[in-house]
Structure formats: structure tokens, C-alpha cells
């Protein structure tokens, strides 16, 4: 595991047109290479906006973002080659088979030929999808779709992987395979930025977390340290203590 800085965020601010309050308001944090960093927060806290800015999908109003020392303004293409996002939606083509989807994504990252085919076969094997590789993914179960969505994100072996609730709505078996795999690639050097509403999973997976609410980081650090610091028994209790118990939309 390396210990350079994978992501550096300084005074990041984003306010959407017509919005009364900033979605992200002057947040700063850094993620070391090889970390699994959890961005936790209630709905509308600013997690997705932060990830979108980090991936270059949105432009911030102010503040600085660097990915492995590069900025989107100067090295957008190089950053895109190093990162990958696994969105919450199954961002794949339902009428294409698993292999066709993965071949397309591999090609878009410059992978081709035998190397790509081998990589696809290997990933499908790990996630138990080999038997269904030629089935259109629109006909997959929810868990299978989540797994193929994750494979699409890791196919080109990114240095930094952004995961937006990768295990939402999946069965225990699929979740188990996914979390095991995430730990495996993390141990091999992939930095992971992870958002989730599943506190138990986050506590188990993340080396460090930041809890965001109303666009501001209200707590950050190692999960166990934070839990102790606030006198809570687990991450969920800490989360509720810091963000309140009111419903969020």
C-alpha cells in the first residue's frame, strides 16, 4: 500500500444556479493512496456533488481539486484514465449482453483484443457471472446488475475508484462478494472513495470517513476513533447523533 496523496480537496464550493444554499460549502479533505475513504451523509448532504466534481463531471465555483497531483483543468484526459466511477444507477445498456457491455467499456479505455477478453472472463468468473455472460443485462437480477456495474468500473484497473452506494438493494450474497472484492483491489493499491447509507458496511470497509451534512464536513477521521470520540457504540449511532433524526429528502 502506498501513502502518497491520491486526492486533495481545498475549500471546495459549489452552488447550483437558482439554489438558495451551496450544495458543497468550503470543504477540504485529502485521501491517501490505497485508502478506502467513506463520504457519508444524509440525502442531499452534498456527497454526489463532491464526487461529480472529483470525477470532472461538474465544475466547482471555487476551491481546488487535484487527483494524483493533476487537475481537471490541465490534465482532464489523464485523470479520466486513472479514475473510474461506479454510479448508483446501473449505467449500462440493458439490451446488450454482459460481454458486449464490458467490451464497449474496455474499448473506451483503450483495452482491446485478447487482453480485454481475458480480463472480462476473469472478472465475470470472480463475480459469478460467467454462465450469464451472453445474457442481456436487462434480464439480470438486481444483484447481478450491481455486480456487472462494478465490473464495468474496475475493468481498466483504475488507480482511484469512486463508488456511489455500490451495494444498495442487493442480496447478502452479492454484497458479500462485492465487499470482499473491494477489499482485495484495495489491498492491491486501488484507492476507493465510497458513499453509502449502510453504516455497518462503511464501518467495516472504510479506513477513514467524512460525515457531510448541508454541504459541510461535520466530522472526519478513522471510524473507530470517531465512534470513541463521540461516545457512541457504532457508526450508525454516531451518524444519527451528528446529523439528527429528522427525515431528509
Amino acid at each position, binding site marked *: 500500500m502506498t501513502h502518497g496523496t491520491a486526492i486533495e480537496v481545498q475549500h471546495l464550493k459549489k452552488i447550483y444556479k437558482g439554489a438558495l444554499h451551496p450544495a458543497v460549502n468550503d470543504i477540504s479533505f485529502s485521501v491517501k493512496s490505497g485508502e478506502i475513504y467513506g463520504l457519508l451523509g444524509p440525502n442531499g448532504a452534498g456527497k454526489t456533488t463532491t464526487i461529480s466534481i472529483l*470525477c*470532472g*463531471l*461538474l*465544475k466547482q465555483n471555487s476551491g481546488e481539486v487535484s487527483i494524483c497531483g493533476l487537475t481537471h483543468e490541465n490534465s482532464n*484526459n489523464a485523470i*479520466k*484514465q486513472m*479514475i*473510474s*466511477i461506479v*454510479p*448508483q*444507477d*446501473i*449505467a*449500462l*445498456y*440493458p*439490451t*446488450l449482453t454482459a460481454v*458486449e457491455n464490458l*467490451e*464497449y*467499456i474496455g*474499448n*473506451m*479505455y*483503450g483495452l*482491446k483484443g485478447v487482453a480485454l477478453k481475458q480480463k472480462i472472463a476473469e472478472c465475470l468468473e470472480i463475480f459469478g457471472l460467467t454462465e450469464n455472460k451472453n445474457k*442481456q443485462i436487462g434480464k439480470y437480477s438486481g444483484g447481478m446488475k450491481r455486480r456487472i456495474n462494478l465490473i*464495468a468500473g474496475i475493468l481498466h484497473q483504475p488507480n482511484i475508484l469512486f463508488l456511489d452506494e455500490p451495494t444498495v438493494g442487493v442480496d447478502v450474497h452479492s454484497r458479500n462478494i462485492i465487499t470482499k472484492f473491494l477489499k482485495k483491489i484495495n489491498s492491491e493499491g486501488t484507492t476507493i472513495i465510497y458513499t453509502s447509507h449502510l453504516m455497518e458496511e462503511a464501518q467495516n470497509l472504510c479506513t477513514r470517513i467524512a460525515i457531510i451534512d448541508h454541504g459541510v464536513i461535520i466530522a472526519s477521521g478513522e471510524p473507530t476513533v470517531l465512534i470513541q470520540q463521540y461516545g457512541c457504540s457504532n457508526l450508525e449511532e454516531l451518524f444519527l447523533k451528528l446529523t439528527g433524526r429528522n427525515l431528509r429528502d
Partner: protein
Amino acid sequence: MLRLFATIKKEFLILIRDRSGLAILFIMPVALVTLMALIQDAPFRDYQELKIPLVLLNQDKGELGEQISTGLVTSKIFEVTKFSGTNEQLRKQVANGEFEIGIVIPEKSSANLNEKVRFFVNETLVSMGMIDSSQLKKTITDEDLPVVVYFAPDIKKSFKNSVLSSIRQVASKLESQTLLISFKKELGADEQTKDSTEKAFGDFITFKEEKSVDQHKTNLELNSVQHNVPAWTMFGMFFIVITLAGSMIKEREDGSYLRILTMPGNYLTVMAGKTITYLSVCLIQCLLMLMVGIILLPLLGLPQLVIGNNVLAIAFVAICCGLAATGYGVLVGTIFNTHQQSATFGAVSVVILAALGGIWVPVYVMPDAIRVLAEFSPLYWGLNAFQNLFLNNGNFTNVLTYTNKLLIFFVFTIGIALISNKFKNN
């Protein structure tokens, strides 16, 4: 190039698995062109080879009745049925729709004409002092005996004019002929005068129909097939707007668009991949429609589509039309946010552009204001370019005005789409 080919392959696979999309792209235009060519066959023939059923009641025993009857038969516009009933019976037959036109030549029309002419001639000769005024005797009344023409209620104005014009032409010729014979007779010409005058009395001014295009080129008349095949080919090509815009919006809705944006490379490559795929679809559509015109429609009793000799120019026009249609699809898919919005706007706008572009009815029969608007429809440009190649056997030079407009339209729509996309992403 890898990204470009990957996008083309992906778009192609998605397309061929979308059955309803394929139906819109291929089955609908084929059905449309076949039906419209069949439906519009008769109206197109109206102006060319179709004969209008006409019933004629000739109560006159003389030359006027005979000449009008012969004139109508030889005009090739009418299918003449001679009637032997009464005037009222004939009127009812026309009113009931059994005939489109009914003509009644009243009794003694010829005698009436001859008498009027004789009186006119004598009057002239008296004024010239060539005969004595005692010979000027009017034996007929001033009562007119008009030729009555009945028209079915649904008959077109152009047909009315054709009929009246034909009758007037015959009557006018007969008037002149009778006048001349009468003059000759009064001036003491012999009995053979009448025959020689009839022979000599021809069309002093003659007309010759010439082709407006160069001698070596064909100049086909517009028929249902020649109009409908290129017209509905254009319509079908532009209908890819629905499928293309739908695919772009679906990509945005399911998140794959965002995934594409996080991938290395320029989004233009992805756009180019989409454009090439849908352009290929347009070209296949075009080929299919031309085959329908050349093979299928003749089997249904319609004329065969004639496409001229410039296959390369046809391919060039098809590419320009395909690009214009694809550009429009990309624009609609970029501007609108939901599939419903894009499908509704796409379909309605293409129908409007088609109407303006002369897809249903030729532009020359439209009102002036609409004809001005037609100049702005890409379907009009495409249709004109195709017809120039098909009807006049034109070449690249003849279609450049239209193809340039189509290419500018493509660049314009893609440009607007890219700018709009940039704004949306920000």
C-alpha cells in the same frame, strides 16, 4: 479510432435489438410509400392520363353537335358516353355521380349558328354595298341556344376549365369555318367551296410541346411513384429523429451518459459514432425505399421508379439527407430531457417539415406564403435534389444548391447540440 468503432458497434447492437425502433425505421416508411403511391396514383393521373367520364346528349342534327362531339372524343381528356334520354335524365345522372360531366347540345344549334352567321355576312356585304339591303332578312329570333354543361359537385375547377375550354375551342373553330364558307358562298364561289374550305381551314397557329431539359436527358412527367418514393424516403430518414433522440435520452436517464463523460477521450468521438451508425441506417432506408419503387410498386400495378443514371450523385444526396436527419436527431435528443418530449416534438416537427417540404402535395400547388416557408425545410431540399436526379437525369452540379443546404443544416444542428450540451453539463 478504437473508441469510434466501439461506439458504432454498440449503437448498431442496440439498434438491431430494438424491435419497435426498427419498425419505425424500416417498416413504417415502406408501408407509407406503398400506401401513398397507391392512394395518390389516381390524383396524379388526373392531370396526365386518366380519362374523365362524360355524358353527351346531342339533340342537334347538324354540324355543331357533330363537331363538339368529335372534339370531345379526340381531346383524350374525356371518356365520352353518348346519351339518348332527356335533358333532365342526363342532369340526374351527373348529380348522382354516374358521370363527372354532362353536356347537352340543344336542338337546332347548328341551324341557329348558320342563320346567325348568314345574317352577319349579309349585314357586312350590305354595308360594303356588295348586295342589296332587301336581301337582309332575319329569319331567326335573338333567343340563344346555349350548350349546357353539368358538373358533378365534387369536380375540380381545373376540370371545369378543361371542359369549357375544349368546347369553346371547337365552337370557335366552327364559327370561323362557317363564317368563311358563308362569305365565299355569298361572293359566288361554287359548290366545292365548302369542302375545300374545311380542308384548308386548319390550325394556322400551331403548338409543339418540347422538353425543358437538355436533349440528352430524360424528362419524365411526375407521377405518383416518382413523387412518393423520394418524398417518403425523406420522411422516413427524418423519422430516425425519434429513435436517435430516444437513445440519447435513455443514455442520460440510465446514467451511461455520465459514465461516458468520465471516460477518456473527446465526447465528439461518441457523437461521431452515433452519427455514423444512424447515417448508415438512413442509407439502408434509402436503398430499401428505392427498391420498393423499382421492384414492389410495379408489382402492384404502379409505374416503375426511374432513378436516372447518376448513381453516385444519388448516393451523395442520400448521404447529405442522412447527415441532415442525424444532425436534427442529435439536436432534439440534446435539447429535450424526456423521451416523451423528444418523441412528441420529433414526430410533430418532422410532419410539419414534411408538409412544408412538399411530401404530401407538391410545393407548386401550395399558397405563396407556404411556398416561401418550404424553402426552409430540409425535406424540401432533399426531395428536390432527388427529383432533379430522377426526373431530369441531373448530375452533381444540378443538386449542389440543395446538398450544400443539407450539409450546412447538419453542421448547424450538431453545433447547436454541442453548445447546448456544454451548457447543460455546466
